[in-house]
């Protein structure tokens, strides 16, 4: 049996045109998916059963005991941190926020170590955004700044951006100009009409110089900015101003480098400046398929998109203070629940050492280094393949994820709900 129009639960592209071949309840083939999506559908090693740590060793147990133990850990903690939430559906996030409120914890998503600085930049400046559909149908100039979709979002260029064909862009790649700004010649850069190689950590300077040129103050600039010839920057600015519809697609090159959210603020400001001359939009190339969705749910539930402290009676947001890495680095969190994420791999080592010192609950379909330091491990179904739900594409479009095959595992949502139920039954004895 072929399941049509299946959504891909991997990256923020959230491709919605996959064909999945199912035989006797098992996926045997996938069409149209990229290498990343293909690997996800074809499956990986799974956590077999719930586990709890006894005498330093993880031993299999029942779901009931795992839920009880998780609830006890969260209930006993003074500063529990509930982290992850981006490789799962919005329904899980909603229950997670309720749980964080119930235990008076901090809830944070993988966005903080990804496009979190972009969100702060957007809060500073505002966003001249659009959907990917507009980019596909209208954009005649695409700028990838610190983004490498050829490796991180393999179908982005063909479906939505530089190489796509749309209503007013019938020539596809031939009718568009592509600029890539990066610190190395990536595979994306090899597809560019103009590639600007910058030194790591100089994004802000280069953006500021471009803004000066765009605003007619280029004569005040030196001959080179951060090692780039002024003539190169003038060429980029001319290409931008000559566009009918330009789209700047920003990646982690901006958020992970010196300057972080100020780099993003700069890029958004450049786009705002360009809108004085022509139409320009800017989008963040979000990583996980539903990292945008957690931000949406968290924002409508608490007023903030990530790093929300719910211990004070009213939501409080101050990344740098309430973000997961900071809470761990300061040894402030005294328990951690990880849902659909792997901070042991993706956080700096010192932060992971702090995780290893506190009780950790892991809710995930797959074993990973977080399993090594977890005290309770609860396996779940894979959202978008074994469970349905809502996810948000990187441009903020909400889409319904399908269930393609059955699973013996409970969904993330069921697991979080069960833990929430047990926390409530334990009562308020703190």
């Amino acid at each position, binding site marked *: 049996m072929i399941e049509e129009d299946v959504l891909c639960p991997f*990256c923020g592209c959230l491709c919605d045109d996959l064909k999945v071949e199912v035989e006797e309840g098992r996926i045997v083939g996938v069409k149209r998916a990229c*290498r*990343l999506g293909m*690997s*996800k559908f074809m499956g*990986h*090693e799974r956590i077999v059963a719930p586990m709890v*740590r*006894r005498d*330093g060793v993880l031993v299999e147990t029942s779901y009931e005991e795992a839920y009880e133990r998780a609830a006890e850990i969260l209930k006993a903690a003074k500063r529990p941190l509930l982290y992850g939430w981006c490789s799962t559906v919005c329904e899980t996030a909603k229950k997670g926020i309720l749980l964080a409120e119930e235990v008076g914890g901090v809830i944070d998503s993988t966005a903080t*170590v990804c496009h*979190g*600085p972009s969100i702060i930049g957007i809060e500073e400046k505002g966003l001249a955004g659009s959907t990917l559909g507009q980019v596909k149908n209208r954009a005649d100039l695409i700028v990838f700044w610190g983004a*490498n979709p*050829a*490796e*991180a979002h*393999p179908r982005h260029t063909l479906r939505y951006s530089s190489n796509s064909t749309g209503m007013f862009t019938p020539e596809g790649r031939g009718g568009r100009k592509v600029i890539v700004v990066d*610190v*190395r010649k*990536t*595979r994306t850069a090899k597809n560019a009409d103009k590639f600007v*190689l910058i030194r*790591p*950590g100089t994004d802000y300077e280069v953006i500021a110089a471009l803004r000066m040129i765009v605003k007619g103050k280029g004569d005040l600039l030196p001959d080179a900015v951060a090692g780039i010839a002024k003539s190169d920057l003038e060429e980029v600015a001319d290409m931008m101003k000559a566009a009918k519809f330009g789209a700047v697609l920003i990646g*982690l*090159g901006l*958020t*992970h*480098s*010196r300057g*972080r*959210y100020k780099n993003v603020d700069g890029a958004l400001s450049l786009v705002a400046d360009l809108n004085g001359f022509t139409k320009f939009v800017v989008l963040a190339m979000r*990583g996980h398929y539903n990292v945008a969705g957690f931000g949406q749910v968290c924002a409508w539930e608490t007023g903030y998109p*990530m790093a929300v402290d719910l211990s004070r009676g009213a939501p409080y947001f101050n*990344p*740098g203070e309430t*973000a*997961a*890495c900071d809470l761990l*680095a300061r040894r402030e969190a005294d328990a951690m629940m990880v849902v659909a994420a*792997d901070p*042991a*791999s993706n*956080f*700096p*080592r*010192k932060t*992971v*050492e702090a995780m*290893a*010192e506190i*009780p950790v609950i892991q809710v995930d379909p*797959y*074993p*990973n*280094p977080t399993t*090594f*330091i*977890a005290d309770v491990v609860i396996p779940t179904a894979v959202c978008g393949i074994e469970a349905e739900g809502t996810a948000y594409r990187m441009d903020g479009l909400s889409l319904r994820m399908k269930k393609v095959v059955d699973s013996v595992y409970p969904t993330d949502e069921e697991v979080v709900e069960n833990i929430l139920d047990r926390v409530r039954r334990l009562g308020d004895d703190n």
Partner: protein
Amino acid sequence: MPQYYIKLTVPQGKTAQYIALGRGWGKEFEFMVIILKAIMISGRTLGQGASLEAKMSPEFFNATSSCAISESDYNALGISGDENVLVRTEFGEVVLSARKDDGLPPGVIFIPMGPWANAVVGENTGGCGCPLFKGTEAEVEPTKTQVKDVCELFADLKRLAGEGS
């Protein structure tokens, strides 16, 4: 531009005079190592993405425990076929397999996102929740030490977690 310096270490039982006898670069003389000062960036790759939900697999190990170095830096370091590189920052050090990458400018090294890269990333978030995953100053030198697998990388942390429960 990348900077190099030469580290001279005197093997136990040898005298400084022994160093003076050394001719040529580090390959021949273990006590003489060329070190590259570089900017370390980490990021996604296709191989890392395809195996990121299979972190215990050899595919993930192969995809993420390597360090890409520009061709000129690679040659200057004199890395031989059986050698790895030791990447050291003020936050830690890690051994990685080395590979040439013609897309990298000299003085910049790239490690795929994952626990090996994060062994040398600092925890400071600059007040915005996000560590500096790209742009850490690093030193790179050839080494005969083996690359740790994912279990070895977390072996000391597991013990800590066991004591805590």
